C-alpha cells in the first residue's frame, strides 16, 4: 500500500511536498519520505508505491558508500533500529518501514548546494542568455544538455515558497563566510562526482543534484536526501542526446501524461492535479524501483512495509 500522509505521535516540524519531518528530541529528527509525488510543482493525489522507501534507502545507500569521507546526519534508516531508539513509533512500524530515517538535527545553512554536471534547466537558460553559469563564464558553443567537465557548483537560495533563485558564489561567501563556502563547494563536488561515476556505469546520468548542509558542535554535516531522483535530475543514459532536453528517468511517463492532459484541456496545470490512471502510477513506481536497483545493484527490500 502506498502512503500519502503520516500522522505520528511526535511534533511535526514541517510537511514538504514529499517528506514529513518530525522532531524526536532536541538532538534528533525523524524524516519520513512518503509516497507522494510532485510534477510541474503540483503534488498529485495518488501516491506511488515504494517511492518513499526508494528515496530513503537510496539516501542511506549513498551515505554508506561515502562513510569516512563526509560526515553526515544519518543515524539509521533501519526500522528495527529506529523503533528501538524511539519506542513510541512501534505501532506505526509498517507505515514507517523503509521510509523513515532517524537523523541528527543540524542548523541548516540557508543555501541549496546545486552541482551541475550537465547543462540543463535554469542553467541552460542562464548560459544561453549570457554564456555564464552561476555568474561564472563557461566555454562558448555548448549545446543544451552538454556534459560539463568539471561539474559546476551553482548555488541557490532556499526559498520558503516558489522557486529557488540562483545566486553567485560571491553571495554564498557573504552568507556563510569564505572558508565554509569553499568547504561546501568541495564536499558537494566530491559527493556528486562519486555519484555521477557510479550511476553512469549503471545506465543513469545524474545531470545535476542539490545538497543541503548544516552544522552542529562537531562541524559541517551533509543533511537531507542525497542523490535521489527527487533531489536530482536522473536521465536514462541510453537515450542521452545532447542538443535537446532529456527525458527524465523517473518522471517521464508521469510528465508526458500530464502534458497530454493539459494539451487536451482537461487540466489547467495547477493543483489539484488530475487523478492519475493506475498504469501511470505503476509505471512511475517501476521507474523509481528501477533507479534504486540499478544504482545500488540490489532490489529494494520491502520486508514489513505497508
Amino acid at each position, binding site marked *: 500500500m502506498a502512503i500519502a500522509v503520516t500522522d505520528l505521535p511526535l511534533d511535526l516540524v514541517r510537511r514538504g511536498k514529499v517528506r514529513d519531518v518530525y522532531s524526536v528530541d532536541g538532538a534528533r529528527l525523524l524524516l519520513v519520505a512518503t509516497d507522494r509525488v510532485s510534477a510541474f510543482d503540483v503534488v498529485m493525489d495518488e501516491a506511488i508505491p515504494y517511492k518513499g522507501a526508494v528515496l530513503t534507502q537510496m539516501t542511506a545507500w549513498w551515505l554508506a558508500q561515502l562513510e569516512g569521507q563526509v560526515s553526515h546526519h544519518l543515524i539509521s534508516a533501519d526500522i528495527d533500529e529506529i523503533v528501538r531508539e524511539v519506542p513510541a513509533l512501534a505501532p506505526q512500524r509498517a507505515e514507517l518501514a523503509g521510509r523513515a530515517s532517524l537523523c541528527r538535527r543540524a542548523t541548516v545553512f540557508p543555501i541549496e548546494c546545486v552541482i551541475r554536471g550537465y547543462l540543463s534547466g535554469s542553467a541552460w537558460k542562464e548560459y544561453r542568455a549570457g554564456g555564464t553559469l552561476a555568474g561564472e563564464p563557461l566555454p562558448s558553443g555548448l549545446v543544451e544538455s552538454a556534459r560539463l567537465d568539471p561539474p559546476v557548483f551553482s548555488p541557490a537560495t532556499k526559498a520558503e515558497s516558489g522557486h529557488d533563485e540562483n545566486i553567485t558564489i560571491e553571495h554564498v561567501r557573504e552568507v556563510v563566510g569564505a572558508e565554509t563556502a569553499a568547504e561546501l563547494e568541495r564536499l558537494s563536488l566530491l559527493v556528486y562526482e562519486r555519484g555521477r561515476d557510479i550511476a553512469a556505469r549503471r545506465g543513469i546520468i545524474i545531470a545535476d543534484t542539490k545538497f543541503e548542509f548544516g552544522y552542529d558542535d562537531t562541524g559541517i554535516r551533509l543533511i537531507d536526501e542525497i542523490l535521489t531522483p527527487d533531489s536530482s535530475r536522473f536521465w536514462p543514459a541510453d537515450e542521452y542526446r545532447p542538443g535537446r532536453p532529456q527525458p527524465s528517468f523517473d518522471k517521464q511517463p508521469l510528465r508526458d501524461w500530464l502534458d497530454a492532459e493539459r494539451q487536451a484541456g482537461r487540466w489547467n496545470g495547477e493543483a489539484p492535479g488530475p487523478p492519475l490512471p493506475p498504469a501511470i502510477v505503476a509505471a512511475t513506481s517501476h*521507474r523509481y524501483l528501477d533507479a534504486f536497483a540499478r544504482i545500488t545493484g540490489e532490489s529494494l527490500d*520491502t*520486508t514489513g512495509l505497508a
Partner: protein
Amino acid sequence: MAIVALVASLAAACGDDARGELTGGGFAAREAGAQAPAPNSPRRTVITDAVGKIAPAVVTVQTEVVERVPIDPFERFFGGRTGERSAAGIGSGFITRSDGVIVTNAHVVAGATRVSVALRDGQTFSARVLGFDEVNDLAVLKIDARGLPTARLGTSDDLLVGEWAIALGNPYGFLLGNSEPSVTTGVVSGVGRNLVGQGQGAGVYVDMIQTDASINPGNSGGPLVNAQGEVIGVNSSIYSPSGGSIGLGFAIPINRAKRVTEDLLEHGAVRRPWVGIKPQFPAAGDAGRAALRSGVVVHTVVPGSPAATAGIRAGDVLVKSRSRVLRNPYDWDAELLELRAGERLTVVVRRDGRELAVPITVADLPEVSAPKVQVMRELELLTLTPAIRTERGVRSARGAVVFKVSDRVAEELGLQPGDVIVQINRTPVEDAATVEKLISAQGQRGALRLFFERGGQVYSSDFIIR
C-alpha cells in the same frame, strides 16, 4: 486433473459428429416465412434481446485442412514417410470490425489450407488468416467487406458469478435458410479457472471463464455474451467437454482476446511477453498442495532474460506481480497471459526471509527479437539458442526456428512459425545459415525432405524448389 486430456480427444470426436449431422441433414431448418413475435411479446426476454443484439455479428467459419501425419523421430534417419489426409472443419466466429475483421478459435483454422466465412445473410467470403495464437486458441480472420455489423465487446474484468452467459455460434451458416445462430444459455459458473492436463501433450489452460452454457465444436470460436449482448468471452471447445452436457464449458476471457487480437492485427503475430522465469511445479501430495498456496518457487531463470537482468534467482519465491497475488504456478501463468511485451512490472519476491520489490521490463520472446536469416524471401529463420530452447521446451539441441513463413511455404511445406527445422535430407541443421546453404546447394538437384520439430514431435515434409 485429467479433464483436459479427455476434453481434447472428445472435442476432436465431436468435430466429426458435427460434420455428420451436417451432411446427414439431421437438423430442422427454420421455415421460410415464419413470423417473428411482436416486440412486446411476453416471449421476449433479456436473453432474446441479447441474442438479437449480437446475432448479426456471428458468423460461420468453414475450413479445408490437409493434415500431415507425424512420423517416428528415429525413423527420420531412414527416410520415413509422411502421410496426408484431407478434411473439412467448421466452427463459429464473430465480427469485431465493420471492414471484416473476425475473431475465432485458432484450432478452428489450424492447418487450414482454405478458410471461408458465411455471414448471417448467407453471403460467403473467402477469408485470410491474419494471424493465430495457438497458446490462447485465438485467430483473427479478414474478409473483404464493408459496413458489416459488429459485436459489442464488453469486459471480462468484472464478471459476476451467476450472471447470464449466452453462447452463440453459427455452425450451419453455409446452408441456405439456416442463417440463425444457435444459442445455448447458462450462467457464469466461475472465473479464473485453471485447467490442468496430465501426460504428454496435455496443456495447462489458465484463467478461463467457466459456464454451464453448452460449448461445443459448432459454437466454438463464437461469442459468449452477457445479458446486455456484450461479448465477455470466446467459446472454446478444446477446453470444454463434449456438448456441455455435464455443465462444463469454457471460454477465453474477452480482455485477453482483445489484447491478442490487437497484437495479431498490428504485428501479424502475438508479441509473446518474455520474463524468463520457469516455476517449479509442486509435487503431488499434501506438501504439494500446501505449496500451491504459498507463492511461485523459481526453478530456473533463463540466462539473458528480463528476469535474469532484474536479478531474480532460482529459489526466489514470487508472491506478487503487479496487483496479482501469486499463490501457485498457475497464477503466474495467468499473469503471463496478461502481460505485454515492453510492459514494466513489479514483482515482489521472497528471498532469505526478506521481501524485495523487483522491477522487471518484459521483453519479446527471443524468437521475436533475435536476428533472422532470410531464405528465398519465403522463410525467416533464426538459430536455436539455449535460451529459446529452454523457453520453448524444444527437445532438439540444434536447429533453425521458423520465425515467419510465406503463405505458399506454409501451405506447401506445412511449416508454421515456431517449428524447429532439425534436418534437411540427411544433413543435420546446425543453425539458420545451414538451412539457407542446404537449400540453395541442393535445391537444384530435385526434392528435399525437411524434418522439423513441433510440440515435441518430429514431422517431415517433402518439397521441390521451383
